[in-house]
């Protein structure tokens, strides 16, 4: 039983059932990974927003502070979207954002950049996170999509055992029909 379950038990009356042993979560591994990546995205976004100058200095990207802040806002938006029920859209937006990050870092990975080693390290980190993002995005999309199976045809399910016309007639006249009557 979790701490939350114990705490919320105080809201329940003596006769209400209380959790004795929680069952397994139905959330899939990719759902949990998506959840963690969402919070990572929000945390990284906040760091980029408030620490843009230090990041720009560490990567030899002076003058690009506004771009880093914009990327921070993007990270926070993606994180919020990934935490929502539309997590597929959020995760794919993270993958697209990873592409932008890599392109920006590659541009800074110049031989004349005195912080080139830091940029290389950042590139390696972004590549690793990108891999996780792709795994999460593909996994969550596969788990929550409708799939390729053909929708079932329920055209035999009228709900009127004796047919619609007979049901309407019986309803209109205030009488009811014989079961099975046409």
């Amino acid at each position, binding site marked *: 039983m979790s701490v939350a379950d114990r705490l*919320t038990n105080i809201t329940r009356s003596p006769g*209400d*059932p209380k*959790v004795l042993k929680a*069952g397994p979560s139905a959330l899939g591994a990719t759902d949990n990974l998506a959840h963690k990546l969402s919070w990572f995205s929000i945390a990284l976004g906040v760091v980029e927003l408030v620490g843009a100058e230090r990041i720009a200095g560490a990567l030899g990207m002076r003058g690009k502070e506004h771009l880093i802040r914009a990327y921070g806002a993007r990270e926070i938006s993606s994180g919020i979207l990934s935490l929502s029920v539309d997590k597929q859209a959020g995760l794919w937006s993270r993958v697209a954002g990873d592409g932008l990050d890599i392109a920006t870092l590659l541009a800074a990975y110049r031989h004349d950049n005195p912080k080139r080693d830091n940029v290389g390290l950042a590139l390696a980190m972004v590549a690793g996170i990108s891999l996780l993002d792709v795994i999460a995005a593909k996994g969550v999309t596969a788990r929550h999509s409708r799939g390729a*199976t053909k*929708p079932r045809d329920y055209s035999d399910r009228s*709900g009127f055992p004796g047919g619609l016309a007979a049901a*309407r007639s019986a309803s209109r006249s205030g009488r009811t029909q014989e079961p099975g009557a046409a």
Partner: protein
Amino acid sequence: MRALVWHGKEDIRCDEVSDPQIEDERDAIIRVTSCAICGSDLHLYHNYVPAMLPGDIMGHEMMGEVVEVGKGINGALKKGDRIVVPFTIICGQCDQCKRQNFSVCERSNRKKNLGEKVFGHATAGLFGYTHLTGGYPGGQAEYMRVPFADATHIKVPDSLTDEQVLFLGDIFPTGWQAAAQCDIEPTDTVAIWGCGPVGQMAIRSALLLGAKQVLAIDCLPERLSMAAAGGAITINFAKESVVERLNDLTGGKGPEKCIDCVGMESHVSLAQPDTIYDRAKQMMLLENDRPHVLREMIYVCRPAGVISIPGVYSGLVDKIPMGQAMNKGLSFRMGQTHVNRWTGDLLHRIEEGQIDPSFVITHTVGLEQGPEMYKVFRDKQDSCIKVVLKP
């Protein structure tokens, strides 16, 4: 016993919980024989309705056998009785209950102060539907306590199966009330947004209540096929313009009666920019509900028509065209269902074979598969329309 318990957003688990106990002399305990996942359970699954707490038992569509009764039941129920439990808990004695406004019973919400703060006045207690409506444990469990059980029940005969009568507790009277409050005339066209379980019941109810034609709007082929089977003309909003098609089918005048069986989580589509606007605002906690269907109904409804809203809304909505609604003289009818107002008539119709609500069931599984079925139902997988659980 086992029960489906809410642990957080999209996290429903099949837990071991303690057994319910009689607390009040008007209580009864039932052994649940069948229960269902309702579309409005998905709002809780998504944590869109406030005041759910970890440890809350889900479920407000259930039926079973009475196994214990309090001393104050006074013969209204006895051990062994087979009952459907309405999702609205009713005292049967207050002013609103006497007027058959059961969903706003004045006594059954045991957390009335919370409800009054949020709604202005408290509504009835509901099973498994947040602490705003009493925080009562729901029926997706092996056993449940029914408060005010002498009034909060529908006795059903042994001659009918669980599947035939289970939906008397919610979706059948909900669809029926949605149609009934339209005051349908024989010349009326009734347009129904959403062909989920309540929409399917509303389609059939509108036809039984004498509508000239019923137009059903959705985008899922399996739901549209079931709607057509029930006698509706279907409109796939992913393939055609709803407004144009509704006007075409009504000689350009629009439907007289419009029913919203979608509620707060309308479909988000790039083709309908307002749905993206709503989704973004909802995500940023700037709006509770996505009212695209309401906007479309107000726009397309014939002047002096009726807008009926059985779909659940939880709080604040944005960009509602009140100018259109006011100038067109539209009437709005809405509310949680006054279940017991309708169940006598509906049970009679089932008994006589006029309608069999079991047509809507697409999946029947054990309670332990409930958490997975929430996902299947939410994600519209496996052509799922209605899940029944067998504890």
